Structures are given as structure tokens and as C-alpha cells.
């Protein structure tokens, strides 16, 4: 038994890969049998990760979630900023430049509004609830964009881990909401044509929420929404720590 623990601890990064794989598998099973594939397995897996981090935090009183437990210390590398940013950059590889032109002007307008609106709302609510410094307000506002933009922005401008975690939680609520509610609100949002799906993808932005939500509405809409949403994270990651942060920094 000791040898097993020693092996897992000494090879913590490999252990983290194995554990993450198991979590993904478990989430896929939960998604299939518990929610009939309505809730995407990635959203379940991320939620499980946050839950694990919560209990690990209670147990260790540390600030790094599950990676404060020695056997899971590999999560600090696997989920750290370096590999995360590398993986995010790699998703751009599947973007086709010709497709950018097809999305056209309305897609760009939707994208920009899609970044500005949640950011302004998020930062504004953060201010009214007592987060008065520009760094925290920016990070929370960025979290209202996506659960990726939040931590990227937070890390770049030096936010504390609890504010970064908060921004992930906000982004996650957004992703899960649109996965579940898009089919229900499709009529209300006039969501039917490719053009409307592009507008939707640009405004909502969170890729998993857009893809899963549109799949539940009409599968034919998915590529159009995902096409625009692919740019959202990049644009958010560009605007968050730059223009948005500098603006708030100048005001507060």
C-alpha cells in the first residue's frame, strides 16, 4: 500500500493525467445516464473538479485545491497556467481563415458586444458587492465572459486565487445555463437561422455552452455558432488584461 502511494506521489504529473482521465470517463457516464446527454460531460467534469477542490481546501486549509494534497500535486502542473495557455492557443489551429469572412460584420459586432456586456455587468456587480479594486473587478468581469477568460485575465494582472476561483465559478454557471436553457429560450431569442446562430455564438461565447446549447436546439446550427464562439475566448483573453483592465485601472 505504501509502495502504491509512493509510486503515485513520485510520479505526480502522470498520476494527475490518469486521475483526470478517470474523471472525464466518470463525467461522460454521468452525462449519458443521469442527464441523457443534455448536460455536456465537460461541464460535469469541471464541476467535479471544483467540488474536489472545495473538499481538498476544507481538508488541507490550503489555497491550491486538490494539488495541496501530496499525491495530487501533479495537478498544479497539469492545470497550471503554462499547459492551460498552450492548450488554448492550440485550439486556434482548427480555425479556417475563410470561415472568418463568412461570419461577417454581424458576427464581429456580436463578438464585441458579447465581450463588453458581461464584462461591464460583472465588473459593475462586483463593485456594488464590495470588490472595489480594479484587479478583482476586471477578473470577475472576465469570468462573466467565460471560465477561461476569467483565470487568464486574473493570472495576467495578478488577482488572488479566491477571485480567480470566483471568476471560474461565474463562467461555469454561464456555460451550464446556456447548455440547458438554449433549447428552451430558442424561440424567445429568435434562434433558427445560421445567421442567428452566429449572433448567438458571438454574444454567448462560451464554446461548450454554445455547442451544447445549439445541439439541443437544432444540430444544423452548431457549426455556425461554434465558428464565431471560437474567436470569443481569444478576443476575451486579448481584451480582458489589456483594454478592459486599463480602463478600469484608470477609473478606480
Amino acid at each position: 500500500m505504501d509502495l502504491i502511494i509512493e509510486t503515485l506521489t513520485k510520479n505526480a504529473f502522470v498520476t494527475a493525467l490518469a486521475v483526470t482521465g478517470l474523471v472525464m470517463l466518470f463525467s461522460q457516464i454521468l452525462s449519458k445516464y443521469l442527464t441523457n446527454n443534455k448536460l455536456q460531460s465537460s461541464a460535469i467534469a469541471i464541476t467535479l473538479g471544483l467540488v474536489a477542490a472545495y473538499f481538498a481546501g476544507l481538508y488541507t486549509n490550503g489555497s491550491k485545491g486538490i494539488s495541496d494534497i501530496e499525491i495530487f500535486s501533479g495537478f498544479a502542473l497539469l492545470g497550471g497556467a503554462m499547459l492551460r495557455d498552450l492548450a488554448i492557443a492550440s485550439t486556434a489551429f482548427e480555425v479556417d481563415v475563410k470561415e472568418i469572412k463568412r461570419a461577417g460584420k454581424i458576427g464581429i459586432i456580436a463578438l464585441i458586444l458579447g465581450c463588453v456586456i458581461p464584462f461591464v455587468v460583472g465588473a459593475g456587480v462586483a463593485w456594488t458587492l464590495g470588490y472595489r479594486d480594479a484587479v478583482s473587478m476586471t477578473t470577475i468581469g472576465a469570468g462573466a465572459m467565460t471560465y477561461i477568460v476569467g483565470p487568464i485575465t486574473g493570472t495576467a494582472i495578478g488577482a488572488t486565487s479566491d477571485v480567480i476561483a470566483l471568476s471560474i465559478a461565474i463562467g461555469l454557471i454561464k456555460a451550464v445555463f446556456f447548455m440547458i436553457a438554449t433549447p428552451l429560450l430558442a424561440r424567445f431569442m429568435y434562434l433558427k437561422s445560421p445567421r442567428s446562430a452566429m449572433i448567438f455564438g458571438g454574444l454567448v461565447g462560451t464554446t461548450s455552452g454554445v455547442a451544447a446549447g445549439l445541439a439541443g436546439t437544432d444540430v444544423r446550427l452548431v457549426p455556425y455558432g461554434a465558428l464565431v464562439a471560437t474567436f470569443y475566448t481569444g478576443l476575451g483573453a486579448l481584451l480582458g488584461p489589456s483594454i478592459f483592465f486599463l480602463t478600469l485601472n484608470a477609473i478606480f
Partner: protein
Amino acid sequence: MIIYGTALLAVSYLLGVFLGGLLGQILGVDANIGGVAIAMILLIVGKEMLAKKGYLPKSTQFGVLYWAGMYIPIVVAMAAGQNVVAALSGGMVAAVVSVIALTATVFVVRLLNNIGNDYDTFTWDDTEEYRDQL
């Protein structure tokens, strides 16, 4: 070779983060400004250039796509490493920010799509759609 793809990604990433840091220095903020997004743009440009010259075989592409596939697992690992206990102490903040931001987003989608005004008139051309999905 698979490493060529990963190296292309790595070089784009490093350049992007370097330029993002440089931009931060120029603007006088102690932050990396859009390094990841610059890396994404560099990767797209690099890919287009290599593809045009025919230097992008399947194995090279796979060296990048592997990391794209690792995106969600890495995000899961990231979530597991966060200070959630501290975040939940401000749990109301997450709920309030989310509800207001979501409502605003839904209404703006409705507004923009209403301006687009093709909900009643639009019908799918099924034959064309099949081609698109192939």
C-alpha cells in the same frame, strides 16, 4: 514528425507570450497583454503558410491537435486546483453576477436577432446543408 506540429505550437506560444509581455512593458502595466491571443493568431498564420507550401502532413497536424484535445482535461485539472473554499465564501457574488450577465446576454441576442428579422422567413435548404456537414 509529430514534434514539428508541437514545436510550431510551442514557438507560436512563446513568441505570443513574449510579445504580450513586451506590450505590457510598453504600456507600463505589469501584465501579459493578450499573449495567448497573439499566439493563436501566430499559429493560424503559421498553419496557413505551411499548408500553402504543402508542409503540413497529418502527423504534423496531430502534434497540435493533441493539445487542442487536451484543452478540456487541462481545464478540469485547473478547476481542481483552485481555491474554491475562498470563492464560496463570496458565493452570492457568483450567483448575482451570473444571473444579471446571463439575462442581459439573452436579451441582446433577442434584440440583434430581431433586427436580423429572418425567424419567420428562414427555411433550411436541406440539400445544401448535407454538403456543408460532409
